[in-house]
C-alpha cells in the first residue's frame, strides 16, 4: 500500500492507505474524524465537504492518495480551541441546523463561499449552495447564518 504524507487540521502525518480508499473513509475510519459525513455517496449532497488546500471539495469523490502532500481541513479543524469559527457561531446564533447531518458540509462550504465571494447577497448564497443538500429543508436559516457570518 502506498504511503501518504498529509497534513490534516494542522497536523502532519505519514501513513499507509489502500489505493481505492476514499478520502472521506480515511478521515472517518482511520483518523476518527467523524464530523465529515457520508450522505449520498454519489457527489450530490455535500455532507462530505472538506477543504483541500483551502478549497471546498467532496471527500467522497476523491481518493485519499490524491491528498498526498496536501493540506486537508475538516470541520474539526476550523474552531480556534474553545472559540468557534465565526461561521459555526453564526449557525448557532441563527439556528442554521435542524437534524445537523448536513451541517459540517454546509459550514465547510460556507467558509469557502465567504472566502471566494465578497459582498455576498442572498441570491448568490443560494446559488453557491447548489452542491449541499439539507433533507430537513432548513435552507432559510442556513442562508441567514451564512449571510450573518459574511457580514461579521
Amino acid at each position: 500500500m502506498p504511503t501518504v504524507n498529509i497534513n490534516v487540521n494542522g497536523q502532519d502525518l505519514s501513513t499507509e492507505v489502500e489505493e481505492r480508499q476514499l478520502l472521506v473513509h480515511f478521515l472517518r475510519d482511520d483518523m476518527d474524524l467523524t464530523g465529515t459525513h457520508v450522505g449520498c455517496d454519489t457527489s450530490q449532497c455535500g455532507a462530505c465537504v472538506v477543504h483541500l488546500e483551502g478549497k471546498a471539495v467532496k471527500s467522497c469523490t476523491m481518493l485519499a492518495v490524491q491528498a498526498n502532500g496536501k493540506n486537508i481541513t475538516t470541520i474539526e479543524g476550523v474552531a480556534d480551541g474553545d472559540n468557534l469559527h465565526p461561521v459555526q457561531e453564526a449557525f448557532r446564533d441563527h439556528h442554521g441546523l435542524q437534524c445537523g447531518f448536513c451541517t459540517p458540509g454546509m459550514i465547510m462550504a460556507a467558509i469557502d463561499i465567504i472566502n471566494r465571494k465578497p459582498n455576498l447577497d442572498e441570491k448568490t448564497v443560494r446559488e453557491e449552495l447548489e452542491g449541499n443538500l439539507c433533507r430537513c429543508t432548513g435552507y432559510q436559516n442556513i442562508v441567514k447564518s451564512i449571510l450573518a457570518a459574511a457580514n461579521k
Partner: protein
Amino acid sequence: MYNFIYEKVNTIEEVEKLLNESEEAKILAGGQTLIPTMKQRLASPSTLVDISGVEELNFINDNGNSLTIGSTITHHEVSSSDIVINKIPSLASLAEGIGDPHVRNMGTIGGSIANNDPTADYPTACLSLNAKIKTNKREINAEDFFIGLFETALEENEIVLSIEFNIPKKSSYMKFPNPASRYAMAGVYVSVFDDTVNVAVTGASENGVFKWIEMEEALSDNLSLENAKNIKLSSEGVMSDIHADSAYRANLVDVMALRAVENLI
C-alpha cells in the same frame, strides 16, 4: 470500487510510458466523473495515472487571437481567470455553471472533453469557438474530435494536453440545467466571428454535441432575433428521457438559442 495501482506522475513522458505498459490504465485528472464511475464498478482500470501534478498541463495562455488552456485546469480556474473573463467571458460563465462549487474545484477541462458526455458544457465551447485540441500525438479540430456519445477521436494512449479557443468578437452560452445534476438539458453556444456565426448545441442530440448548421446560416446572414425565431430544431434524433421528451427538449434548444442571440444584439 475494485482496487488498482495508483501512479502519480510529473511529466507527459511518464504518462505515456505507464499507458503503454498497462492495457487497462486510465488517466485521473480531477476524477469527478471517473471516481463515481469506478465506485459503481462501471469502470475498473488496473492503473490510475494521476496527471494533476504535471506542471506543463497547468496553464492559461493568451495568444492574442486565441486562448490556450492546459488540460488539468479546473472549472473554477477557468471561471475565475482574468484572461478568460476578459477575452471570452462566455467561456468563464460556462465553467461557472458546471456542477457545483466543490465539483468545479476538482473537475478539469481536459477530463470533460475527453469524456464527451452528451450533456456536458465544454464540448459546445470547443465547437463554437473553432477549438483545436492538442494531444501528445497531434492537433485535432474540434469538429473532428467529438464523434458520438462518450466517443472522441482520441486513440489509445492519446492524451489531451491543451485546448486552443479562438477569441470571437462576442459570444454567449445559454443552458437549461437539469435542476438536480446541473448537466445541460439543452445548452446553446453562439459565437460571432468576422465572417461567420457558429452555433453548437449540447444536451439534446442522441449523438452528442453538434453544430446547428441551419441556425448558423440564418445568423451568419443576419444576427437577429427574427432570423433565430425562424429556425426550429427538429425533434428527430433528440434525446427523450424522464426529464424531457424529444419535442420538449428540441423546444428548449430553440429557447436557449433565442436567449443566447438576445445577449448578443
